[in-house]
């Protein structure tokens, strides 16, 4: 009802976030994001804080998916850098990983201290088995869209054999197969 709500909503807030705000926002994100931070990140960055528009966010995410590293890690760096330069990038990244780092180390201490207790062993064994199941599910989900692309299936299978069966190093495998795959995509698909 006031003047502010009458302003157009498709513009980002003109005032860029401070370094402190970047740090605390990503710190919060690191604490709440279980099993994938991305949906939470979109809500915080686009809807809650309005640092970026939907289109800007999607564009930046495209960059982060293109580059190596976790999407959300790259996104925190890109946003920090965009608003506050290198200091902003460092504040965002450190904010994002600070709390999860502390928590995994605490879990690691628990694991180390109690790993001789059979009940704790069983608990962690069950946890690891469940985590393996989630990885299998993820592999199935991302493999399904390839079913209409025979060349892609062959390359994915070669990659699997090279890494999981032959245990070849990642760097040479990646250089050979990624070049082949990119060439095949260029030759037959675009």
């Amino acid at each position: 009802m006031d003047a502010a709500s009458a302003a157009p909503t498709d513009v980002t807030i003109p005032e860029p976030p401070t370094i402190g705000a970047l740090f605390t926002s990503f710190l919060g994100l690191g604490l709440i994001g279980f099993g994938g931070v991305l949906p939470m990140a979109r809500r915080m960055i686009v809807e809650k804080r309005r640092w970026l528009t939907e289109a800007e966010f999607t564009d930046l995410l495209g960059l982060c998916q293109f580059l190596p590293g976790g999407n959300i890690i790259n996104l925190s760096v890109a946003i920090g850098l965009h608003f506050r330069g290198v200091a902003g990038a460092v504040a965002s990244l450190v904010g994002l990983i600070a709390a999860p780092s502390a928590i995994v180390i605490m879990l690691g201490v628990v694991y180390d201290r109690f790993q001789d207790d059979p009940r704790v062993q069983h608990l962690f064994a069950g946890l690891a088995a469940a985590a393996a199941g989630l990885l299998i599910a993820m592999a199935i989900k991302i493999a399904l869209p390839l079913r209409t692309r025979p060349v892609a299936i062959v390359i994915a299978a070669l990659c699997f054999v090279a890494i999981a069966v032959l245990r070849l190093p990642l760097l040479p495998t990646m250089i050979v197969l990624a070049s082949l795959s990119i060439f095949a995509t260029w030759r037959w698909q675009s």
Partner: protein
Amino acid sequence: MTAVLISLAAIFAELSLLAFGGGNTILPEMQRQVVDIHHWMSARDFSAMYALAQAAPGPNMMVVTLVGWRVAGWPGVIVTSLAKFGPSSILTGIVLKLWQRFKDRPWRRIVQQGLVPMTVGLVAASAALITQASDHEWSLAVITAACALVAVTTKIHPLWLLAAGALAGLSGIGLS
């Protein structure tokens, strides 16, 4: 100790720049380096570290921090974190400036599409290796299969499945 830290830095800096498609693609290479080459821990311990990291909040690369801590304590945490998150972040910063210029070029889509089969192959390899190291009893294989099935067929939050797996393990059924 310094030699270990240098090895950690070299391994994770390389992984940082090879992690196309996210953290799960580099698990096999991380396991190969940490378990097979440097013998810093057993394959079973490695998959336990991975599971712990999955049960924690935050980005899904936190297994890196845990490996660093396990191998070399606090200095290990600092070195692996810097090595894992530094190079890819610097690359992001550099490319951010060029992004506007090439994001609409056709080759950008071709490269990105071409990397997808690699991601699929690598995540499948991660799944195979972590499963192999985790399921040393038949009952654990049942937990893995059940979690995979439920995760593929429903939209249930992964944290519930991890909790259910941990509880099933705690029950001790089929475990020695």
